[in-house]
Each structure stands twice: as C-alpha cells, then as structure tokens.
C-alpha cells in the first residue's frame, strides 16, 4: 500500500502544557529553565516570551534583562517524553500506528486511515483543531515519508499536504536543518553556503559522503523515500485487532454492547475464515477525556463464537465507566490459537461436543475468577497428597489409569488432624480415638497399609494407614506416623470414607 505519514510539531510543548495546567499564566511571559554549567538556561519559552525575543538556549539572567516580568519555572527533562507518549496514545484514535518523535513531535502512519474522515485535508484539520482546542500550539503536515512530513510541518508555508511523490519539489526550497541533521553537519553546510536543500540535492553521492558523512545521505534518502525509515509505534499493532470509531461519543450500556457485538462479529468472521480462535481478548474504549477503559477475558480453548465471547465480556461490561463518552472502541486478540487443534485429536473416540462445556467453564471463570475450575489426573505416587495433579479442562489424557478399589476415602482432610488413640498392642489398630474432644469407639478395622515417603522428593517417617469403622458405621482413615521403636508414634485422622 502507498504509505502516508503525518508529522505533528508541538511548537511550545512544555510551556503549553504548563499553561493548560495553570490557565492564569497563559498570557504572561514565562520560561522553563534548568541549571546547566552553573547558570540557569532557558529550555522552553512560551509564545509571549518568544515574541519578545526570549528563545531556548538563553541564560535566564539575559532573558530577565529583556523581559523583567518573566516568570521562570523549573524544567523537567523527562516531561517531554511522558507528554509525547500520552499524546501518541491519544492519537491512536486516528491511526493504529502512532509514535512519539522526541523532542517535540509525533509521527503517525496514516496509510489508509484518512478516508474515514473524508480525505486528508479534513483529517488533518480535525487533528490540528482538536489539539489546538486542548491548548497546544501545533503544526502538522502529511507526506509520503517521515522525513518530508517532518520538514513540511516545521518549515512549510501554505499547504501542509504534499502530493504523492511530491516530496522532492517541496524539499528543494527548505533549509538543510529540515533534514534532521546534526549541528556539526549544519555548521559545515552554513560555512559552505548551502542555504537550501536544492543547492546540493543533485550533487554526486560520493562527493557528499566525503564531506558530510553517511548521515546526510541517509537522511536525504529517508526524506525522499529512497531509504526505509522505521517508526517505533507506541502500541505495537496486534495482528488481530478491530476498531470502531464512533461519530458521537457513546455513553450508554446498550451502545457499548452494540459496539462490542459489531467488533466481535468482524473479528470472529475473520478468525473463522482463517481457522483460528481467540484465547484472550481485550476490549478497550478510548474516552473523550483521553482515558482508556478496558475489560479483558480469557477462554479455556480457542473460540471464534461471537455469542459465547460476547457473554464472557458481558459479565464485566458494567465495569466500563464511559465518563463523558467513548469515541473509539478497539477489540484486540493478543492470544490466538488454531481451532480444533491437538486437543480434540487426543481426546477419546466418543467425540462428544465439548465446546458447550468449554464455554460454560469460560463463563464460570469469567464471573468468579480463573482459579475456580479444577480438573484432576492421576499421578503415579502412593503418597495421598501427591496422587493427583491438577490440569486444565481437557488438557491431554491420563497416561496412567486411576487406581482401582476403594482404598482411598471420599472425603480427605486438607491437613491430617492429630488424634489421641488407645492401642492395645503395637501394630494393632486403635481401640478408640479422641478427635476434637469426642471419643469414637472402633468396632472394625482394616490395615495397616504402609506408605513410605518418596525419598527422592521428601524424607521423613512412613505412614501406616488404617481404615476403621466406629460403632455407628462411620468409617475413618487414620494413620500412624513413625514406627514403634523410633520414638513415640503420632496418630492422625486423614479422611472419611463414604
């Protein structure tokens, strides 16, 4: 596709920000300054101060001499980066690829975006007008390359949109500084009398390289579109992403739901065509006030079923606070997998339709948290606590069979609880035991079943398990820790048989 870039230049970025925060100083001259080499240096000056002749790079004392009423604020060097990042995020409503361009600009890749606003001129006007209404003094320009757009935004007169392939004509009359060159190169050019790009653009490349180095050729190539220029987008574009800009800000729940349904339909249609399914989804709303509100979901297995995904989102949709209105909805799928992948093939011959169950579990997870659903598979360990392992639903099949027989109790206590017992002889089952102050008389018993510690996992004394039944028919699973002859054995209750 034919590439188009838009460059925004914030003429007084930090001072504009200051004026937005403190409207009372808007019409007074002020500068932002920071100490450098033992003196205060002006880093940024607002429009009033600039028109009076105070420029960045001056010493504050000199500036005060020109303008005695000048106010001075301290300058934070990290502020520009933060501001530009936030502004780039805000610009995501115009294009998916926006990048901060330090120290005072933004670069937007607007290829294929402008027609949504009715062409490049209305698109540009919309951005500039919106930013100006916020209080930023901006200039913006559109061109085929980042370099040309950058130059046009800063040095252009009149029309701010370069025709397709028209960057060369525009650059001819611009000064060399519009090529984003180092100060050193610019000084050398000044010395040689190069005031306009047109004076050297047609010179042979080796000549330019010998005098000014590779950087000049690279910058010229980038501005003319001969060299590729990569921009670092503030949000990397996800391959599965749908956007829905709104004509009017959306405030109501119904409106949000309609937007979500439309986006889901688009995304699911696309994924269904490609045989993919969503595993994780994020639904974002860009609010009028610049905030981004979002809800996310996860699914147990890949799904491209719009109704099901909508249900999952619906559980949290009420947590979206529309504020003054949402003007752009974005649906992202950060995690996408093949549908009908290995899982079905691994599963049994009776091919049950497990999709309904997966969707049910997704619903439950979405409402009550990811840690509510548990499935278990057997593990080859005799130690009761280790005999099962937790898996996610339909994750593979057991490679070992469940042990047969009723040797394990239906109710297992999470921790074995100590009991006091009366044992007639060593290695005999107890006659009665006391648990939580109550005495249980044992009438029948089976055992012991000795379970040794698995030395490669854990060391300690073995457990001798007894299945005992009291006079009322209740069956307990007791064990004795430690052998006789190795100190006093302790007794524990570990479970109840059904």
């Amino acid at each position: 596709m034919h590439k188009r870039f838009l460059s925004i230049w914030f003429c007084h970025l930090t001072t504009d920000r200051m004026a937005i925060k403190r409207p009372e100083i808007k019409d007074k001259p002020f500068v932002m300054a920071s100490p450098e080499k033992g003196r205060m240096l002006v880093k940024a000056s607002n429009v009033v101060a600039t028109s009076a002749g105070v420029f960045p790079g001056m010493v504050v004392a000199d500036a005060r001499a020109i303008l005695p009423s000048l106010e001075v604020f301290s300058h934070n060097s990290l502020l520009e980066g933060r501001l530009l990042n936030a502004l780039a995020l805000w610009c995501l409503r115009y294009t998916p690829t926006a990048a901060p361009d330090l120290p005072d600009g933004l670069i937007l890749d607007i290829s294929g975006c402008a027609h949504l606003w009715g062409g490049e001129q209305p698109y540009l006007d919309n951005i500039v007008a919106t930013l100006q209404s916020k209080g930023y003094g901006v200039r913006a320009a559109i061109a085929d390359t980042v370099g040309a757009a950058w130059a046009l935004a800063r040095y252009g007169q009149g029309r701010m949109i370069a025709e397709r392939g028209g960057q060369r004509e525009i650059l001819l009359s611009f000064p060399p500084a519009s090529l984003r060159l180092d100060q050193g190169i610019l000084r050398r050019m000044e010395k040689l009398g190069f005031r306009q790009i047109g004076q050297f653009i047609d010179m042979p490349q080796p000549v330019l390289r010998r005098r000014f180095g590779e950087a000049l050729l690279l910058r010229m190539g980038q501005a003319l579109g001969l060299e590729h220029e990569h921009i670092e987008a503030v949000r990397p574009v996800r391959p599965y992403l749908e956007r829905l800009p709104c004509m009017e800000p959306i405030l109501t729940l119904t409106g949000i739901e309609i937007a979500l349904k439309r986006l889901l339909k688009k995304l699911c249609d696309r994924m269904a065509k490609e045989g993919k399914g969503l595993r994780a989804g994020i639904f974002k709303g860009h609010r009028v006030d610049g905030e981004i509100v979002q809800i996310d979901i996860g699914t147990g297995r890949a799904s491209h079923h719009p109704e099901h995904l909508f249900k999952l989102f619906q559980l949290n949709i009420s947590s979206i606070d529309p504020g003054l209105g949402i003007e752009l909805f974005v649906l992202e799928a950060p995690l996408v997998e093949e549908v009908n992948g290995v899982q079905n093939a691994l599963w049994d011959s009776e091919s049950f339709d497990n999709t309904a169950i997966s969707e049910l579990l997704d619903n439950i997870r979405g409402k009550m948290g990811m840690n509510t659903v548990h499935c278990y598979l057997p593990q080859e360990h005799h130690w009761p606590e280790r005999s099962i392992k937790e898996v996610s639903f339909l994750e593979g099949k057991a490679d070992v069979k469940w042990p047969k027989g009723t040797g394990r109790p239906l109710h297992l206590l999470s921790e074995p609880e100590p009991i006091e017992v009366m044992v007639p002889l060593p290695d005999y089952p107890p006659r009665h035991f006391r648990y939580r102050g109550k005495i249980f008389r044992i009438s029948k018993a089976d055992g012991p079943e000795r379970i040794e510690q698995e030395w490669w996992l854990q060391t300690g004394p073995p457990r001798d398990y007894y299945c005992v039944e009291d006079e009322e028919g209740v069956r307990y699973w007791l064990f004795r820790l430690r052998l006789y002859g190795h100190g006093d054995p302790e007794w524990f209750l570990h479970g109840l048989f059904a």
Partner: protein
Amino acid sequence: MGEKSEVIRQLRAEIMALERFPAPRMRPTPGLDMGGIESSMLGDAFPIGTVHEFISQGAAGAASTNGFIAGLLGKLMQKGRFCLWVSHQRTVFPPALKGFGVEPDRVIFIDVRRQKDVLWAVEQGLKCSVLGAVVGELQEITFAESQRLQLAVEKSRVTGFMHRYQPRVESALAFATRWKIKPIPSQLEGGMPGVGFPRYKVELVKVRNGRPGVCQLEWRNGSFCPVPMQKDFNGRERQQHYA
C-alpha cells in the same frame, strides 16, 4: 378389567405431562437400580432430568451422602459424559470417586469463594444440556431459588443433586425428591473380621408423585444392593420396611 387399568394408566400419564413431569422421563432407567427403593417412586424408576435434594448432618453424614450421590453419578455419566461438582469448601478426594464407578477426570470441580456463588454456578451447569449431572454442595436455598433450578433442568434434562449440609430449616422446595443418607455398620459374611462393604440407611423423606420410604442399601460390586436378609436372634427374617 384390563381395559380399565389401561385407561387409568393413560390418564396418569396425561396428568403427569400436565404436571411438567413428561412421560418419557419416567421410563425405568437402565442401570439405575436402587435395590428396591425405586419402587416407592412413580413409575418404578429413579427420576432423571430433575433435581434431587439431599440433607446431611455432621461430617460422617456428609461423606455418606456424597458417596451415595457418587454412586448415582456413576450411572448417569455413561458414554463419557462430564459432571460438574460445585462446592464452597470441597472435601471430596477425586481418586475415591473411581470406587463409585465415576471416572474422576470426568468430574469438573468448581470451587467458589462465596457460598452464594454455588447457586449461580449450579444454575449455569444445569442449563448446559451436554453435562451428565451437576452436584452442588450448599447450605441454604429458598423456594424461589429451587424453582429456578427446577425450571432450568426441565429445559435441559440434566440431573441435579443438591447436597445441603446442616441446613437451618428444611422448608418445602420445588425439587422432585428429598433424601437423607446415614451410614450404618457394615458386616462381612460369616462374621469375618474387618470392614465390609459400605452400608447406608437411605431415607426418602419426600418424593413427588410417590410414597416416601426407608431402606438399607449396600454398595457392592458397582451398584446398590439391598442389605441381605439376616436372621434375627429369634430366628425370624428381619423385615425391610418401606413406609
């Protein structure tokens, strides 16, 4: 005479259909033989596709009740169906389910943080017609909530088991049956020492369109069997009593 009884049978079926108890469900369910107690229920079969209520007191009663439910689950989860087991504080140890004929990896345990979430999860499960059964462990449930669950199963034909542990009141609910299961001492044949097959005193407290009853069952070889008749001390056969 035969004609008359045929007419009465048809009328009964019609009444049942009107009472939202459709006839096809009342066929004797293969494999769900309950050792005699099903004769006290309508149509001589254990009703599936409805919700059953179990009330238990104490840890021992709860374990027996879960065992009894697991025995029924084993029959309902034929053909590789899945089951949902919703609980708030779960004590069930999955490998033991194998002893009741349930494949433990086909049971999906839902452990919710709050007690009142159990009902929501159970209702979602009961609406999902692919499931074989849904078990819910909870304490209190109101009549309106029970109606909701009953309505859900009438559409999806899933069987639900509501295990109420130590409820404060045993009020009337919209469920088809109410059971109370207690363990009773086991006995090995010939007075051999050791623990025998588990035995339960199964009390059918309430049943819609049937007669309540009490019986003693034993879980043996993968099904419930009536406790074998034993000679009393005075030589008479001990009577099993159904109310």
